[in-house]
């Protein structure tokens, strides 16, 4: 037995533990699907609450008009919601486009806040804080600037949160609008569906926990006020605010019938940039909230903290260490004598991954096709392996930022 064997053993245990956790989440998520599919969404109160729909935008001229128009077309009573677009230090023609929309829909509650590099330009959290300061709604809904929500999306979110006082926020589902654009977007489509039914629905079913996804969610105004708005240092402001809502004793529920469609990266370069930013943001949140693991008041969210720690630290480092040892062993630099699992077990595990992902896919219209099975298999050897690089790069960037004290600014997904 060598020290490398110990490292390898730890890595293998981490990888398999997470695999088992994810199996449990898929099972729970699917049971939640079977349950919610039968149940109707709660009804809106007689007097629907006033909702502020906030859309932070930075150089989103290409998509902002479509997003605002789809928000204007929501079937929620038009006089009971306002749309606040925070056009944050944009250098494109967003302000003109938004002004045009304001003129066209002069009878609607459409507010446009234009900031410059003095008043804004400090990232999504800061933009949301600016928008929040001008909002009036008792509920705050947030959509990304590249979203096309379905007409019922907001109604379902409001109805759900109003039906249960314990809910601090309700999140909806996001789908890939451009899923047929490239192989990458097909992978992303599979990933988002699988992730939501596993990580969101599964965690809700098992632990009554969800993580705000950054778009298509609603939360109570007083919660935002109590937590003092969004953490401007956080890139993953959604994950960050989720923890803060939990700490206040509220729950975050997943309502899969509220759907928004969003534009996903179509090239690996854009995807890599976006995902490594998310990874870095999540690392920030984990580091910030890690002490909660030892806080009795945070007992309910320990699973979530552990889950994030496991995904972004243990799994990534385990995969890197085991892959590195494998390569070094093959090159003869490192001697490992550790035993391994049988090939049959590995084969079963891969089969499990493929079948598990496929059953989450066929909950959605148009996804039950054989080609998706091949895509999942291809995804296993390509996209999933790329995730490891993304997560590792995000981790590296986080520590680099900490060392060089880099300021948080807008990191947005490039449009095409």
């Amino acid at each position, binding site marked *: *037995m*060598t020290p490398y*064997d110990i490292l390898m*053993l730890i890595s293998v245990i981490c990888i*398999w533990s997470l695999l*088992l956790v994810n*199996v449990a989440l*898929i*099972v729970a998520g*699917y049971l939640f699907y*079977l349950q919610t*599919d039968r149940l109707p969404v709660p009804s809106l109160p007689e007097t629907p609450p006033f909702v502020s729909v906030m859309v932070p935008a930075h150089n989103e001229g290409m998509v902002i008009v479509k997003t605002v128009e789809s928000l204007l077309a929501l079937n929620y009573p038009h006089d009971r919601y306002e749309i606040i677009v925070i056009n944050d230090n944009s250098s494109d023609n967003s302000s003109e486009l938004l002004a045009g929309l304001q003129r066209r829909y002069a009878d609607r509650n459409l507010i446009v806040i234009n900031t410059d590099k003095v008043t804004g330009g400090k990232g999504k959290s800061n933009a949301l804080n600016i928008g929040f300061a001008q909002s009036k709604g008792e509920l705050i809904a947030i959509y990304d600037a590249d979203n*096309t929500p*379905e007409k019922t999306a907001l109604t379902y979110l409001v109805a759900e949160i109003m039906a249960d006082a314990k809910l601090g926020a309700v999140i909806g589902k996001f789908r890939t*609008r451009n899923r047929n654009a490239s192989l990458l977007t097909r992978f992303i489509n599979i990933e988002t569906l699988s992730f939501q039914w596993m990580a969101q629905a599964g965690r809700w079913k098992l632990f009554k926990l969800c993580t705000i996804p950054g778009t298509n969610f609603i939360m109570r105004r007083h919660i935002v006020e109590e937590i003092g708005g969004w953490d401007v240092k956080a890139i993953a402001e959604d994950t960050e605010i989720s923890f803060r809502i939990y700490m206040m004793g509220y729950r975050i529920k997943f309502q899969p*019938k509220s*759907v928004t*469609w969003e534009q996903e990266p179509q090239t690996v370069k854009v995807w890599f940039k976006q995902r490594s930013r998310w990874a870095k943001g999540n690392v920030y949140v984990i580091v910030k909230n890690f002490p909660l693991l030892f806080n009795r008041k945070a007992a309910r969210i320990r699973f979530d903290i552990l889950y994030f720690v496991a995904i972004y630290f243990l799994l990534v480092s385990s995969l890197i260490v085991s892959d590195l040892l494998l390569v070094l062993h093959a090159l003869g630099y490192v001697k490992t*004598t*550790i*035993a*391994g*699992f*049988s090939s*049959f*077990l590995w084969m*079963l*595990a891969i*089969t*499990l991954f493929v*079948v*598990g992902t*496929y*059953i989450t896919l*066929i*909950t959605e*219209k*148009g996804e*039950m096709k054989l080609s998706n099975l091949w895509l999942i298999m291809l995804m296993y050897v390509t996209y999933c392996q790329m995730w490891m690089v993304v997560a590792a790069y995000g981790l590296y960037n986080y520590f680099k930022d900490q060392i060089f004290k880099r300021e948080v600014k807008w990191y947005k997904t490039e449009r095409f």
Partner: protein
Amino acid sequence: MRKRFGIPGTAALIALAIALACASVSVRPASAANKPPSSAAPVLLLYDSLALSTPREGNVETLERLFAAYGVPVAAMSIDRYAKGTLKSYRRVAVVRNAPDLSIADDALASDLAAYDGDYLQIGGQELPGRVQARLGLALTAAPLDTIRLEAGDYGQTLSAVEDLDYIAGASGDAKRYGTLTFASDGTRSPYAVSAGGCAYASYLAGGGLTELALAYALKDWLHAGGEFGAYVLIKEIYPFSDLELLKTLADKLYDAGVPFTASVKPVFYNTDYPAMQRYLQALQYVQARNGSIVVDAPAVAATSTAADGSLHGKMSGFIELLAANGIAPLGMGAGLFWTYDNVYASQGMSFFDSVFLEPNADGQHVQSTGTSAAFAFSPYVMPFTQFQDFERLSAVPRTPLPLNLALSFDLFPDAASMDVAVAAISRSWISFADLKSGPHAVHTDRLTVQSSGGSLLIDGKALDIGKHERAVDADYAYTAAAKTSFAKLFGVQNRILLVIIGAALAVFVLFLFIGYRRYKRKFLYPGGRHDAL
């Protein structure tokens, strides 16, 4: 003649012992029952030319193999390299004259031959020592290019376009005549060879034809080789990766035809525990059980082999012992002639055997060549069966005894069809084939002795049961030894636990898949279903 040979014969045996010692060829003495015959005194073989690129090419090697078939060591050299006085060391000299335009009248050899009184054989040419010419009463005539029919023993063959042939126009009355040459152009007939009183002359020798057999009749007398000779079937080119099922079928067919045979099997020195080797050994066991005898073929010589390597002895003895351990009794060896002219091969690779099937040289490579060949007590002359088939049978059934031990060889057949054809040809040949294990043969290694006698096989004196003993060969053989692993027990337990968990999860997933499929159809495919797309 016998009287005259008495004392010199004993001297010749002593001379052989000295010659072998000088040549540093350590050939294990044959067992008492299988000593080389009295003809084992060495022969000095002299030739004027190797006749390269002519029909006679290879006849010197043929003659060497013929001598070897009688257990006679040979010291071969070109007449050009003959050193005066060399003849004094020999009591038997054979001269091959392939180039009539080269005269030896002024050479040192001519003067030595004039004083030489030992046994003398010449093939071709008209320059003979006076004593020999007189003893044989030879009248030689040069024949023009012609087609000649040769008959020897029970066989005949037409030789096309023979040139530079000196035929025996006349010989003394007491000279024994061997075979007949008939010239197609004018019907002239002459004996193929004559011999008398230790002198012999043959007109012509070309490898690959009936002249090999015809000369053997004369050599038998010239070398005073006694005893009965037999014909053997020799199957060559048998490797672990040969079609072993075909080999077994061949064994069955020859067994059913009542033909004993000998399989010359390639040795294996490494990875002898592999399943392929186990299957090889089992096939050889089967062959032995079907009245086949086993001899070990010479290993291929690597271009990088050197005398300093010294591993051949250990490798060969290891293979012999492996065969013995698996109930297989190797009775001899098969090798190219050049092996007998190499100190290393002879001492390290052949010294275990007293019986060797000597084959024509292929692409041989010497490690440490020597001038005198090693000889063996039993060394059949190997002739391809296809060559033998070219001989015309003069009578339906062979009546004349063979002049030497003859091994008719086949390479293991590429397919069943060619095997069937060959087996049918063997059966039609009317030759009574001998069983190798009926004769006395011995193989000695440092650890064991393999012997045969009267049809029985003995290993270290114990009779070998040659019944078929098929064993199952492990198909899951681990080709590389499993490395010592850490946490093996932990992983073993975890493996079982995870198999159960993952298996159960997979079962649940398959159930979900079934539910999902039905629900999907109901929800999205049937008219009136819920459509929640954009």
